[in-house]
C-alpha cells in the first residue's frame, strides 16, 4: 500500500489506485456474471437429486446474508471514521467487519458440510456443480477480503494508517461492498427463487 500522495496529481485528478479498483470491479462483473449465467442456465435441469428445494435452509441463509450486509455497514463506518481522523473507531469497525466476514465464511462452511451430508457434491448433478462453484468463488472472495481487512487492521495497530491514508480503507471498502452486492444477487437468484 505504498504510493501515497505523490501520484495524486494525475491527468484526470483521480487517484491511480482508485481507478484501478473500479476497473477491477467492472471486470469482476463479467467474472461473476459468467458463473451466475451457468447457474441460471442449468437451474432445474439436474437429472438426479438432491434438488435445491430439498436442501436450502432459508432462515439460516437469511442470517448469513444479513451478517454480510451488516458487515458492509461496519465497513463504511470504518471509512467514515478514518476520514474524520478517528483511528480508534476505524480500528473497531474494521475489526467488526472482519469478524462478520469470518462469521459468514463459517456459515458457508457449515452449509457446505450440511449439503454434503445430504448427498450434494460437486459431481452429484448440475445443481451441485453450479451451486458449489458459484458460492465457492464468492466465498473465496470474502476470504480474501477478510485477509485484507485483517492486514489493514494489524497495520493500523502499528500506526500505519492515518487520516491521510484513508484511501487504503476506501479501496478495501469498495472491494468488500462489491463482494456484498454479489451476495445480494446470489441470495435472491440461488436461494429465494427456486425453479418451479
Amino acid at each position, binding site marked *: *500500500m*505504498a*504510493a*501515497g500522495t*505523490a*501520484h495524486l*496529481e*494525475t*491527468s*484526470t485528478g*483521480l487517484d*491511480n489506485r482508485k*481507478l*484501478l479498483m473500479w*476497473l*477491477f470491479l*467492472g*471486470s*469482476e462483473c*463479467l*467474472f461473476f456474471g*459468467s*458463473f451466475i449465467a*451457468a447457474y441460471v*442456465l*442449468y437451474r432445474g*435441469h*439436474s*437429472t438426479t437429486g438432491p434438488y435445491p428445494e430439498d436442501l436450502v435452509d432459508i432462515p439460516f441463509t437469511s442470517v448469513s446474508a444479513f451478517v454480510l450486509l451488516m458487515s458492509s455497514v461496519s465497513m463504511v463506518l470504518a471509512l467514515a471514521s478514518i476520514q474524520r481522523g478517528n483511528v480508534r473507531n476505524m480500528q473497531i469497525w474494521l475489526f467488526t467487519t472482519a469478524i462478520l466476514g469470518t462469521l459468514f465464511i463459517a456459515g458457508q462452511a457449515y452449509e457446505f458440510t450440511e449439503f454434503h451430508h445430504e448427498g450434494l457434491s*460437486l*459431481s452429484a*448433478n*448440475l445443481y*451441485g*456443480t*453450479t451451486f*458449489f*462453484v458459484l458460492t465457492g*468463488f464468492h466465498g473465496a472472495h470474502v476470504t480474501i477480503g477478510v485477509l485484507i481487512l485483517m*492486514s489493514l487492521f494489524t497495520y493500523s495497530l*502499528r*500506526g*500505519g494508517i492515518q487520516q491521510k*491514508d484513508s484511501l487504503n480503507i476506501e479501496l478495501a471498502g469498495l472491494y468488500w461492498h462489491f463482494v456484498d452486492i454479489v451476495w445480494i444477487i446470489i441470495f435472491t437468484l440461488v436461494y429465494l427463487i427456486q425453479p418451479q
Partner: protein
Amino acid sequence: MATIAAPRTSPLAQALRDTRAAAEHNPILNWLATVDHKKIGVLYGVSSFVFFCLGGIEALLMRAQLARPGANVLTADEFNRLFTMHGTTMVFLVVMPMSAAFFNLMIPLMIGARDVAFPRLNAFSYWTFLAGAIFLNASFFTRNIFGGELGAPDGGWFGYAPLNLRAFTPGHGMDFWALGLNILGIASLAGGFNFIVTILNMRAPGMTLFRMPVFVWMTLVTSFLIIFAMPVIAVALFELTFDRFFGANFFNPAAGGNPLLWQHMFWLFGHPGVYILILPAFGIISEILPTFSRKPLFGYPFVVFSGIAIGFMSWGVWVHHMYTTGLGTVANSAFGISTILIAVPTGVKVFNWMGTLWGGSIRFRAPMMFAIGTVAMFTIGGLSGVTHSMVPSDYQQQDTYYVVAHFHYVLFGGAIFGLFGGMYYWFPKFTGRFLNERWGHVHFWLMLIGFNLTFFPMHMSGLLGMPRRIYTYPSDYGWNLWNLMSSVGAFTIALSVLIFMINFLYSIRRGKEAGDDPWDARTLEWTIPSPPPHYNFAEIPVVHSRDEFWHRKYQEDAQGNVVPVIAGAAHAPEVAHGDGDGHGGAHGDGHGIHLPSPSFMPLIAALGFPFIAVGLIYDYALVPVGATLLIVGLYGWALEPATEEE
C-alpha cells in the same frame, strides 16, 4: 509514501533493501527486478519472438506433413497436438504479448510519462506471462517425448467441450492447457488494468484525449477489451478445471450439461479477443503511415471513433463462430447481420489509411513497406471474413481451410505484418541504430510472397471441401497442388524470418547510427534521445497539439505550405515545471528524478502460479508452496516502499 513499512531496523528489512540496491548494479538481478517499462517491454518482445519461432516451427512440421497426400511425417496424434499448440501459442504467446511489448515500450514515451502507473504490476504481468508460457510449453513433456511420445494438449485451440473432458482427452495435456491459459489470463488482465490507468492518468500536460497518438487510443480500446473479455474465458477455464479435476458437470452431457455453453463462453472471449489481436497493429500502422507519407493521419477522429466502435461491436458477434451448431434461425440472422456490420468501422479505417497516402510524399522505408502490406493483406482477410459472415454459405466454409485462410490473412497479414512494421519503426529509438534497410526490404518481399503463397491457396483447398484439422488427405480430392503450394510458402516465410533475425542481431551492434529523430517523425517519443534515458523525459513536455513534435519542427504559412520552424525563432518547447513527482524539473542530466526502485516481489509472486498449477496436476503438496510464494510476494510488494530513500 508509506514510510512506516516494515520496521526500519529489522535485519530482514535491511537485507531486502540491500538486495534491491544490488539489483541496481548487478546486470542479471537488474533484469529480474526491473520495473522500468522499457526493459519490461524488451523482455516481452524477446520472449514473444522466441515463441513465434516455436509456433512457426510447429506450423512448419504441420506443413511438412500436409505437403503431400498420405504423408508420414507426423502421426495423427502428433499432428493434433501440434495444431493445438500452434494456435494457442500464436494467439496467447505471440500476438498478445508482442502487442504488450509495444504497449510497454511506447505508451509512456508517447504520452510524455516517466513510467506506467503501476511499475511493479507491470513487472508482475510480465513474469506471470513468462511463467504461464513456460508452463504451457512444458506440456510437451507430459509424455515420454524422448521415447517418441509427444505430450501437449490435443483439444484444438478453442478446446470444445466435451472433447476437452478427461473422458475424451485423457492425459495431462489439456490440464496444462486449462491452467496455463488461466495464468496467462492473469498476466493480460494485470497489463490491461495498468495501461488503462496509465493512459487515463499519466498524460503530460496538454495531452488531451484527442491529442493522443492513435496507437495510444488503440491500446486503450484493446485494454478495455482485455479487462472485460478475459474474465469470461477465465471462468470457462475454471469450470473446465473443475470438470477435469473434481468431477464437476459443467460440460458433461451425461449429467445434462450443455457443451454449447463452452462455445458461447469461449467465443464471448474469442471474438473480442481477435480485436485484441488486431487493434494494436492498427495503432502501429496508424503511426507509421503518417510519418512516411509526411502528412497527418487522414480523418483522425474517424479512425479513433471507428476503433471504439469496433470495440463495442466486437461484443455482439460471437455467435458467428457457432453458425453450424444449430442455434436456430433467429440467432443466426441477428448475429449474421451484426457480423456484416462490423465491416463498416473497419472499412472506415482502411479508407482513412488510404487517404493518408493520398497527396503524401511517400518514403518507402522498411517500416512503411510493412504498414502498407498490413493494409493490403488485412483487407483480403477482412473481406473473406465478410464472406464468412454470410450464414448459409458459411455452412459450407465453416471448419474448412477457407477459415484457416481467413484468419491467417487477418492474424498474420494484419497483426504480424503490423508488428514487424513496428519493430522496424521503433528499433532506432531503443538501440540508436537502424535495422538494415536493404535486408528489411528483402525480408518484406520474401515474407509477402511466402505469405500469399502459403495462405491464398488455402481459400481454394477450403472451397474444394478440405476440412481443417486433418492430418492426412486422399490424393484424388483435388487438394494436392494447393497444399504443396502452402507448404512451399510456409518455408519461404521461415526463410524471411531467418533473414530478419540475422538483420536484427547484426544491426543491434553494427547498424547505421540513427540519431534521435531518424524518420522525421511526429510524436513525442522522438523528442528524446535514442536510446531513451531511464527517466525518459528530463523535463515533462507540454503538449499543444496532435502531432506535437511535428509542430515543433514545421509550421504552415498562409497558403498552407509547410515551412520549417527556424531555430530560435519560435518559442522553445514549453515544459511543465513541478512535474508529477513533485521534485521539480530535472536539469538535462536527469538528476533529482526519483524513479521506482527495482523489486523482486513481482517475480516472487508470479512464481507462485506455476507451482500451484503443477501441484494441482501432480501433487497437491506443491499447492501450498505456490500459495506461499504468491502471498509472500504480494505482502512484500504491499509493504516495501515503491521508491527506496537514498
